[in-house]
């Protein structure tokens, strides 16, 4: 190898280490920013009224409409479809053991504990998390965030707190709606394929699914809603370089939100099934 080539290898290693180090520091900084945003949001939600700077109710209501009500069509369609798909796969798999009747157990538990919250989380991350990142990013490059600061209006209280309240309230409600529709979808297929009456299917689901299972799903939804909000806001706040930057950070926000949801889901399931 030439002398120049010999010199290039340590330089490349140094550059790779430099990039790795910067990425690690950037990641830690983002986690820190997330913690600060969460603390400040909770602070304004709890103490805003006492400090005569309450979180805006109209904005919170508007966010609730955006996060929850306007997401209903897509959540409804996806949930019904996934419910039917779960029933198809469940019956197919259990048929090997001649235990198709038990499909209600698999469907009931997995929908309420896993699929309802997870699918809702992923849909909301793609829909609302991305729009939050794009909105805050656009506001940042058009100096609207600076305008809030110089008007003496805390951007976290004005922008983040209403979004956080809306997400924590609406995402679990959407997950409940998704649970219901997935179970209805599965029930319809089970009744068609196996000849089980819908009433009998419903009774079996009620017997199998416990309140703890439902709460497990709801707690996870709340956790996902906080993650989606923070990831969206952090990526929006870090937008640089105009419209292209907004697009880049919006994509990053969706990828990170979905990754965070899946990893958190796994950790949550591991911890709660051990105790």
């Amino acid at each position, binding site marked *: 190898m030439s002398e120049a080539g010999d010199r290039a290898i340590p330089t490349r290693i140094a550059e790779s280490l430099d990039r790795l180090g910067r990425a690690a520091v950037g990641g830690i900084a983002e986690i820190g920013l997330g913690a600060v945003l969460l603390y400040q949001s909770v602070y304004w939600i709890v103490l805003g009224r006492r400090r005569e700077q309450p979180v805006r109710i109209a904005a919170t209501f508007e966010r609730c409409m955006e996060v929850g009500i306007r997401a209903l069509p897509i959540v409804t369609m996806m949930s019904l479809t996934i419910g039917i798909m779960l029933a198809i796969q469940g019956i197919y798999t259990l048929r090997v053991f001649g235990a198709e009747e038990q499909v209600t157990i698999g469907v009931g538990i997995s929908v309420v504990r896993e699929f309802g919250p997870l699918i809702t989380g992923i849909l909301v991350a793609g829909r609302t998390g991305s729009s939050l990142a794009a909105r805050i990013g656009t*506001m940042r490059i058009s100096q609207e965030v600076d305008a809030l600061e110089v008007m*003496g*209006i805390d951007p976290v209280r004005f922008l983040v707190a209403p979004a956080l309240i809306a997400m924590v309230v609406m995402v679990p409600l959407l997950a409940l709606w998704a649970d219901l529709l997935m179970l209805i979808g599965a029930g319809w297929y089970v009744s068609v394929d196996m000849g089980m009456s819908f009433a009998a299917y419903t009774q079996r689901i009620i017997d199998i699914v416990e309140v703890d299972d439902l709460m497990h799903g709801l707690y996870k939804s709340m956790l996902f809603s906080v993650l989606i909000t923070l990831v969206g806001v952090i990526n929006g706040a870090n937008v640089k370089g105009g419209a292209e930057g907004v697009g880049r950070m919006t994509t990053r926000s969706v990828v990170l939100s979905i990754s965070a949801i899946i990893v958190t889901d796994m950790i949550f399931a591991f911890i709660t099934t051990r105790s």
Partner: protein
Amino acid sequence: MSHAAEKRDDRPRPDLSGAPNVIEVKKLVTHYGTRKILKDIDFSVREGEIMVIMGGSGSGKSTLLNALLGLLRPTRGSIQILGEDLTRISEVEKTLLRRKIGVAFQGGALFGSLNVLENIMLPLREHTKLDVNTMRIMARLKMQVVSLAGFEHLNPSELSGGMIKRAAFARAVVMDPRILFCDEPSAGLDPIVAAAIDELILNLRDAMGMSVVVVTHELESAFRIADRICVLDKGDILMTGTVDEIRSSKNERIQNLLNRRTETETLDPEEYLRRLTAAND
């Protein structure tokens, strides 16, 4: 000279020599990363004065404005605004201080989710306990001042560039601030609309008695409205003085700026080659 500029020359410049300072910047140094942007800046603005901060691209004028607004933490130095040191006060004190200043941003920075009236009412909603009707009346009064009456219910996306600037001015002055900051008020506007915006700044100062800090690179606009001009170049203040003092300055860099000459155009070719060789050594 344009009609608006003639008007300004008819309007006597107030004698502000004895007026107290509302802004006092001492030994200000700022960095972006390791790059030094502002180098030991000393600068003051008197009560009731229109101070124009002028300079080319990269001169540091936007950095200086961001530091004055508390959006950028300086490395060293002090920034006294209305007697409070911006570099030392708490966030709560900063919030209270910001209620006494107004800012009209370059692009307007109006909130797209609110209509024009709601944008202008926003500071009143956030900082006062006035009832909604009173706030509406106050906002509409300011809209009349900026000649925007009748456009209350339009969204910012439905306004022209000049109207966005006017709405931004109305929002900036709705709390009757003591200091108004304007970032590139005439940028991106045709000469007639730009002249009208300059008239608006003069009218606001005369009607409300506020101090105005204008950051611009538009020479015509600066000469039309300024009581004093502060010329920035590469992070240094080249000169602060009245319009006549700036115009008659013998400083080569100021003359380059006034005559819109670039550095490379004024460089002697031999001198350029000598610098180039020196840089490579």
